[in-house]
């Protein structure tokens, strides 16, 4: 709930597209549809993501407007769960299992197909008992103002967020430019101007 307390570090987006009539109910349903769903425990390494409330990452229901919609602001969070295995330990264990396989059969080399099978089996076993790393990224969307603040500067997070946002609301997020603060005519002049500061060192 970084957006509600402490210092803000935000990436600004313009929200492009038409907000439908009766958007409250539509957006509530869409958030519920694309909310985070707890994956089965045996889920592999692929990340799982979806919307949750900014107050509690375990709260994934948007039926109560008072918890996420304070007009003109909508607040929600993208939760991303990802499981990761300790790579060095996995490699060493695979090697040990391959050695055991060779000893049992009195051979020197373990075929690649067997090694791959051992690795796959180990990964499945270990992933089933591994808890995911959980990340949440808050946003505030000014629905009337047509802008959104994402509480992260990571490019990867921004890309995933934009994709999920478009899937959910059918609206595009365009990175805000400082040129948005000025009139189009002046912006065009600035776009056409060459850099002038490096000349200072001449």
């Amino acid at each position, binding site marked *: 709930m970084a957006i509600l307390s402490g*210092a*803000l570090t935000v990436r600004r987006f313009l929200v492009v597209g038409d907000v439908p009539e009766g958007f409250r109910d539509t957006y509530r349903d869409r958030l519920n549809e694309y909310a985070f769903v707890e994956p089965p425990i045996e889920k592999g390494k692929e990340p799982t993501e979806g919307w949750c409330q900014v107050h509690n990452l375990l709260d994934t229901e948007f039926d109560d407007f008072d918890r996420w919609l304070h007009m003109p602001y909508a607040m929600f969070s993208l939760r991303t769960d990802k499981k990761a295995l300790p790579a060095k330990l996995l490699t060493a264990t695979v090697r040990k299992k391959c050695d055991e396989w060779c000893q049992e059969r009195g051979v020197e080399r373990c075929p690649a197909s067997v090694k791959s099978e051992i690795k796959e089996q180990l990964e499945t076993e270990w992933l089933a008992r591994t808890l995911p790393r959980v990340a949440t990224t808050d946003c505030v969307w000014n629905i009337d103002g047509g802008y959104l603040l994402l509480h992260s500067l990571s490019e990867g997070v921004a890309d995933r967020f934009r994709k999920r946002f478009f899937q959910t609301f059918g609206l*595009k997020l365009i990175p805000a430019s*400082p040129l948005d*603060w*000025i009139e189009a005519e*002046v912006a065009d002049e600035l776009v056409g101007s060459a850099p002038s500061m490096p000349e200072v060192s001449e």
Partner: protein
Amino acid sequence: MSEGRPILPHQAAEFYTWLWWSSERNEGVFDLGDPLGRVDVWVDERLAFRTPGDSKVTAVLTGDNPSATLEARAALAGGKVLEELRLGIRRDDREYAITLKGAPMHFTRLKLPQVLLEGEDSVIYDRMHLYEEVESVIGALFRQFAGVRSEGDWESTTLQHIRKWILAAEDE
């Protein structure tokens, strides 16, 4: 509007330098017109520089009042450009601190004045009101810069003043 306006690295660097120079020249006082009026803006505890054409920070100055150090303007004199600028902003009795970062001018480590916690509704409205005030100030400062930058005498007048100010650090 499908792709938005471009984000140009050199414009942010030029704006940061102009703002630093202007705040020293105006003793931190900016008249931003209606509805903002008079706002105090000063360079605070962090300056980060990069080499032109690269986005990686190559020098960082922190601590109390780093903009007053010889190293700060010497970095500009040496051909580096600003990549991050920490500002203090005061409007009426509200004081903010913010670091503008990179070409998109991301708002980072934005410290808002303390708001009274009286329920969530109030917190979000207060914080967003304060955020929007800061964005209005930065937007107005950028508009002032853009006005000066797009004038025909930018190179012959303003840039010359900035150049003298930068090089003066070497004589101090």
